[in-house]
């Protein structure tokens, strides 16, 4: 057996007369946020064109859901947006509940709100850390913020661990309610955690906004106009950063969100800094909702369909519904078509990151290479949700 011969080939840099350079960013790249490949066309340092290549993390969630029952799929749903797993499960079980008109007890609704809001805080913490790391580098100031944020996120994951037993992918939601009640002492430790995070968020805010370099990198970069934002369908903090006061918790309330007081932050600039401001306010508002929900938490059952014995026991009558929840990254939607059996006939997963990422080709051209990572970070895509 002879060893395969490698003919040394000189790779010429792709310099044509127009002085343009094609550069691959990803799929393996320190700031690719997962597996994203951007084929950039550069003129010097300026990006003039970008082609996005996605799909490296495709796990056929939609086909898979047609083969799994309503009891089985929620724990798989958490694997779409693995950074905010609670809200992914939320969308799916609510879709089944809306079609089947299953009742959800008040206590379960409040527990859903608490976990969803804690999840939003955890997800935003990871966003803040990774975004700063994108701009500051793993060997620079960005890593400092990243480690601080991870420290706080850990506190929330600890809470989830004592509630569910898992730290990343939970399987906490089920059709008709939630799977577990809170253990004794959980509410108190949750209150403490919320206070700690609230205080530290203010510290980071001061640390970042008093930093002229941070402001120089975030302000005026990656501006998204309102028209473009709506036409592409970006949602969540990005849409609110572009001047649209649209929060599903307010506009289309679900799971008792109308019981709580909270602000919907809106910024009009549409740049990276506006998106940062929106998320920083959302931290506080989410923590506020958690506090209110803990105070008002009613007694009662946690599920209207307890004691399921078989995975195929939940049958959803014929019908269809599009149900959306406000996830950490925006509108997480589930379009479900049920045919009366224990499995959905068709499930379309509307990932917030997929639509948010589609904005990139519209806003990147004209920016410098360094801005791409800042814009990518401010969009905060999770590739589990983009590729599904």
């Amino acid at each position, binding site marked *: 057996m002879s060893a395969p011969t*490698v003919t*040394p*080939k*000189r*790779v010429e*840099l792709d310099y044509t007369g127009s002085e343009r*350079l094609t*550069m*691959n*960013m990803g799929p393996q*790249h*320190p*700031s690719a946020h997962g597996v994203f490949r951007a084929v950039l066309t*550069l003129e*010097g*340092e300026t990006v003039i064109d970008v082609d996005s290549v996605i799909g490296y993390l495709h796990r056929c969630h939609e086909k898979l859901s047609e083969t799994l029952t309503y009891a089985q799929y929620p724990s798989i749903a958490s694997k779409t947006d693995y950074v905010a797993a609670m809200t992914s499960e939320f969308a799916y079980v609510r879709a089944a509940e809306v079609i089947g008109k299953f009742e959800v007890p008040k206590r379960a609704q409040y527990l859903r709100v608490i976990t969803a809001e804690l999840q939003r805080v955890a997800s935003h913490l990871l966003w803040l850390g990774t975004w*700063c*790391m*994108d*701009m*500051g*580098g*793993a*060997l*620079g*100031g*960005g*890593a*400092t913020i990243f*480690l*601080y944020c991870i*420290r706080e996120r850990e506190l929330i994951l600890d809470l989830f661990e004592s509630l569910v037993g898992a730290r990343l992918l939970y399987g906490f939601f089920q059709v008709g309610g939630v799977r577990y009640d809170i253990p004794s002492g959980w509410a108190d430790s949750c209150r403490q955690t919320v206070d700690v995070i609230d205080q530290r968020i203010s510290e980071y805010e001061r640390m970042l906004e008093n*930093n002229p*370099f*941070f402001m*120089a*990198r975030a302000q005026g970069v990656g501006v998204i106009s309102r028209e473009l934002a709506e036409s592409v369908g970006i949602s969540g903090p990005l849409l609110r950063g572009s001047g649209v006061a649209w929060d599903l918790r307010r506009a289309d309330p679900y799971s008792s969100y109308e019981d709580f007081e909270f602000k919907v932050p809106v910024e009009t600039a549409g740049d990276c800094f506006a998106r940062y401001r929106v998320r920083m306010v959302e931290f506080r508002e989410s923590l506020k909702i958690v506090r209110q929900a803990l105070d008002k938490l009613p007694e009662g059952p946690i599920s209207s369909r307890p004691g399921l014995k078989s995975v195929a026991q939940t049958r959803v009558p014929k019908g269809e519904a599009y149900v959306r929840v406000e996830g950490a990254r925006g509108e997480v939607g589930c379009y479900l078509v049920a045919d009366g059996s224990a499995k959905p006939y068709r499930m379309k997963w509307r990932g917030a990151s997929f639509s948010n990422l589609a904005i990139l080709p519209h806003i990147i051209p004209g920016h*410098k*290479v*360094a*801005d*791409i*990572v800042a814009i990518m970070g401010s969009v905060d895509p999770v590739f589990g949700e983009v590729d599904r």
Partner: protein
Amino acid sequence: MLELVTPLIAPIVVLHVVIGIVTYVTLLERKFAARMQSRIGPYRVGYHGVLQPIADAVKLMMKEDVVPTAADKPVYNLAPIVFLVPCMFIFATLPFAPGLGVADLNIGVLFFLAVSSMEIVGLFMAGWGSNNKYALLSAMRAVNQVISYDLPFVFSALIPVVLAGSLKLSDIAAAQSGLWFIFYPVIGQLAFIAFIVSTVAAENRAPFDILEAESELVAGFRVEYSGMKFALIQLGEYAHILGASFLGALLFLGAWSGPGPEWLGPIWFLIKAMLVFLLVTWVRWSFVRIRVDQILALSWKALLPATLLLLLATAVVVVWRANAGL
């Protein structure tokens, strides 16, 4: 006989001492950064991780040396050495104590500045020879940045020269036996700030590390290097920053002057250099990186005119004081 032997032995001693300090400076930085980030830092190798730099060196030596098929091999292989040599040369002219040094040249500052900006040659060779687009972009950025920041670096280093009236490093140190130049009213503090900023930029440290920029360019010009070649580049970079720290301590912090007997001089010098190094490290671990156009704008629109004006003002003050007989 001694006159013949000393010039042969001194460089070897200095080289080894410098390499020893450089390896431990990496540990100092890691510990310092870890404390800033509420971590512990290296802890497992030896007591509180004191053997970590040695473990790192051994690890890098044992790594496979990968040469990309498409690389321009002579340029690629030569680049780490071309990069390292000027970084080591800068220690030649540094006096570590009165009369203790390899060569206390009459034009010491000039030599230091000239040699220290030669690292760009090795840097560009590494970026070009790797035949990698990230490395190429990084080399482009490096040339931009080094040209832009060497001027303010030179001008801010010239202010102590004007104050001391000599280009010889030992004379500048001796001139500070009364008042350290950093305490010189107004001029001293401004010059020190300008020196630190341009040092950080000329050494390509965060927040000006756009040529390494691992979130955009992965590792920039050294993306294709591995094993000992990577170690040489790393060594050169830290030697350079250490040399600049020594220069800062010498130009502004009174070099070896300090309380205690005279033989403590080199120790004081080292401590002061470490303080400058930690200042630079502190900046590194608290700022985000700025963009290439912003870096260039900062140099040409703010730092260069400011240092130039400061240099002129210093000259005016010195002449006025001489005429007034102060």
